């Protein structure tokens, strides 16, 4: 899980072009939107593309995205759960 969290932080920085932000500066449980990193609705869409491209996971729109993308921790849990499901299939 820790490896996944670190990997996700790097991917988020890349996908959203967060120049000047390092993975160490992103707290696992800090909110990504509003306060925290201050991301917005376009970033949600970018993260949806990220999950699809990198992990093959589909997020069905911004509504589902709200809980999935709350923090890096929630993203990692979502990816992990989906990967488990994919392995079982």
């Amino acid at each position: 899980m820790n490896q996944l969290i670190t990997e996700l932080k790097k991917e988020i920085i890349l996908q959203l072009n967060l120049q000047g932000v390092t993975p160490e500066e992103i707290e696992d449980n800090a909110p990504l939107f509003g306060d925290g990193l201050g991301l917005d609705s376009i970033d949600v869409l970018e993260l949806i593309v990220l999950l699809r491209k990198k992990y093959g996971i589909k997020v069905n729109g911004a509504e589902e995205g709200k809980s999935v993308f709350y923090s890096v921790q929630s993203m990692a849990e979502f990816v992990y759960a989906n990967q488990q499901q994919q392995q079982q299939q």
Partner: protein
Amino acid sequence: MLIQNVYINGLSGISAQPTFDETFLSGNIQEPTAAYKKGVEPDYKQYLNPTASRRFSRLIKMSLVAAQKSIAMADGVMPEAIITGTGLGCLEDTEKFLGALIENHESMLSPTAFIQSTHNTISGQIAMMITCYHPNYTYSNRYFSFESSLLDGILMLQDNSCKHVMVNAADEVIPSVHTIIKRMRLWDRSESIAQQAGMPVTIGEGVVSMIISSEKKNSSLAQIKAYKLLYKLPAESSIEAQLQLFLQEASLSVTDIEVILLGMNGDPSNDCYYEPVRTMFSDSTQLVYKHLFGESFTASSFAYWLGAQFIRTQKIEPFCILSDKQRAPKHILVYNQFRGKYHSFCLLTDVEV
């Protein structure tokens, strides 16, 4: 169109020359370092928050920074309209999205490039940067892109719906478009303007941001006294006749015009249209600029930057001179056209005229 009380109160330009820091006006001329006239860009970190500007292409960053500077020069006024002219729009993002679309067969496309590719992104981002709820327009029509923007701004000042209007021009070059333009033999023909032989005209990029205002200030750079756009010359008329009419309406004659700023670009099929004008104004100092700034749909905006600066400083940059009559610039006629179409005439004058 005769105009009352239109002053250029704020002005900023980012171009292939060091115009942003204005050292160009002290003779700091940039030799071309790239295959085209690439913009000399400022250090954006000084002006833009990196996280807030994470999505922005070069063109948008250039536009935002130029807008900041022109507003600051105009004592921080809130523009009551923001109008931008761009001939080709945000090419970097257009190419990014189109390329991804083709390569990924219409799947898993990132939205950022699409959003940033729309032509009105520049005007829209400027409005967000300064929280401006006022009218917001974007013109994109070849060699009238900037000119229509300026016309609309002048109309809004003249009908008193605005006191201060921001008028911008913005166009960028990307390598693929340079290649395509060369294939079209459009703006990169490796030819030079006479007497500027060392500097062939190629495609150029950059932005200009102006605050025009109905309020005269001590710091006003210049006035716009008359302005006219004519897509095609009437069959029964000539360029000389149109210019005579233009000057007559402003109660001026040819001899009153100390300086003319011409949009010649080295292409014989284009520059031939300037010859009758050069003959008509043979006693005026004649200037050119596209060998320094390049050619594009909005390159003419640099003529306005130059004209206003020359009037303000009362000094003409020697590298712009095609023919020198040693005349102090109080009345500058800016004339641009492209292969016999898109004629624009503007009379810039000293603030006290």
